[in-house]
């Protein structure tokens, strides 16, 4: 007998609009337990819009989104973002990733303060994450605005991990990072997935890096999904190039 485990994230026929502008339409994608899934595509394809609609930053114009928290399947399309956070979804945005006028320590604390509801648990998580991110521990009293790009990205990821999310949405974590740091961050993401059991949906411009850590990938052209497959399939096919060249 086989029990069917629902996908952690199931998006069906999602449409995102800004007034009259349709940023993405007919988007269907899934993230299963244990997976890293990449969402790729050229600039302006609508990747960020899809991520923001899943998180609740923008209300989907159509379609359904469901989230499985390990026990229940929640219909989350149109929920406000803070409710998503309470269900166990974290997001690391591509721009303004940290709270510039708070010190590193407080940036981290804030990631758990409103979700864990127990100060001792917040402090336990902070200690654990500072052990895991020694760079941040060294800079705990420094304002987040003074961190380097790579450090800020790490801080945003650490903040996202504070409340032990089940699903993490990442928007271009490679943005503006030097190759060495980039390697470190991607290794970290893989560990987060394997060791902490956080499922990941990652939007990336750095296709090679993303396909290295992803199990599967979806490739968008302008406004919709072009094709999908395992990372190996996507990496080998000619269609990837076509999607980026718009042919």
């Amino acid at each position: 007998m086989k029990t069917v485990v629902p996908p952690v994230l199931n998006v069906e026929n999602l449409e995102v609009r800004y007034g009259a502008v349709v940023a993405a339409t007919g988007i269907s994608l899934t993230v299963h337990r244990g997976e890293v899934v990449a969402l790729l595509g050229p600039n302006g394809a609508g990747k960020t819009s899809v991520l923001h609609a899943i998180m609740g930053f923008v209300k989907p114009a159509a379609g359904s989104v469901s989230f499985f928290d390990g026990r229940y399947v929640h219909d989350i399309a149109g929920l406000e973002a803070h409710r998503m956070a309470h269900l166990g979804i974290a997001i690391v945005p591509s721009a303004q990733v940290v709270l510039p006028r708070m010190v590193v320590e407080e940036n981290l604390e804030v990631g758990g303060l409103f979700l864990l509801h127990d100060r001792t648990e917040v402090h336990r998580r902070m200690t654990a994450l500072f052990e895991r991110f020694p760079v941040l521990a060294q800079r705990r009293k420094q304002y987040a605005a003074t961190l380097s790009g790579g450090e800020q990205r790490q801080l945003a990821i650490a903040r996202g991990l504070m409340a032990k999310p089940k699903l993490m949405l990442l928007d271009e974590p490679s943005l503006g990072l030097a190759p060495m740091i980039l390697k470190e961050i991607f290794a970290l993401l893989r560990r987060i997935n394997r060791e902490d059991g956080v499922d990941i949906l990652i939007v990336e411009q750095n296709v090679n890096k993303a396909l290295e850590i992803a199990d599967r990938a979806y490739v968008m052209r302008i406004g919709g999904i072009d094709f999908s497959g395992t990372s190996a399939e996507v990496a080998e096919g000619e269609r990837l190039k076509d999607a980026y060249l718009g042919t």
Partner: protein
Amino acid sequence: MYLPHLVEQLFIGISTGAIYAIVAIGFNLVFGTMNVLNLAHGATMMLGSYGLLLAYYLGLDNFWLAAVAGIGLAIITGLTIERVAVRPLRGHWWNTKVATLGVGLFLENLVALITAGFPKNVPRPFNPTYHELFAGIEISDVQVMLILISISVMLGMVAFLRRTPAGKAIRVLAQSPDLARSVGINVDRVTLIGFGVSGMLAGVAGILNAMTYGSTYPFVGVTLGLKGIVVLIVAGIGNMRGCLYVGLALGIAETMAIGLGGSHYRDLIAYLSMVLILLVRPHGLFGEEGRVEREV
């Protein structure tokens, strides 16, 4: 003007300046964080002082309890403004300004109508007695109390914003509404709390002002509110400590101007200094460049 008089003026300047600072901090709490210039803030101050009077009128014969009632009325006003004039217009910068201005004018004219517009005497907690500090310099105990209350209110605000979850939520919201949501902050609720706290500050300022002059009137919040906005803009939006320094400086400058030249120089000082400082530093004395563009 001889020295003792100058020092006495300095004390008066500090206590009025502290009120300006509290007004500015009240503005800043909703402007610097929720991006709403609440033009009913002055009317909320006015209601704080009339709430105190109303409590007396209804038979509560204790200054401090009546003051608490006045502050309570101001808090309720702040909460109501959020629900009626801000939340339905969320994100529409001009509309919230017009709506809060409308609410403010309505409240001021309503009170003017009910009270026939005359200034009303406000009871004092005790009659001021003057103590000689040194060399003929006198200070009244009411003044000392005003200064102490103002200092405690400001320290309390700093502690609230730095230490409590609600205060931290307000600071996160000020930096990024989306990040606030993504860490589980209910933005609607925190906005409401911000307006409540801002209303409380307005109530405190209105009552301290009434204690200073021993009276209040329906349009007391108009000038006081303008001064608060002057202080906020000169200090630089988003900067609490800046509000304190600039508020005190304005209060001192004003009383010195009165002492030296007469009371019609008072407002001239306020508005002229604002123009001059902004010519030199468009983002305010303590403001960060880029912040205004980003948040307005």
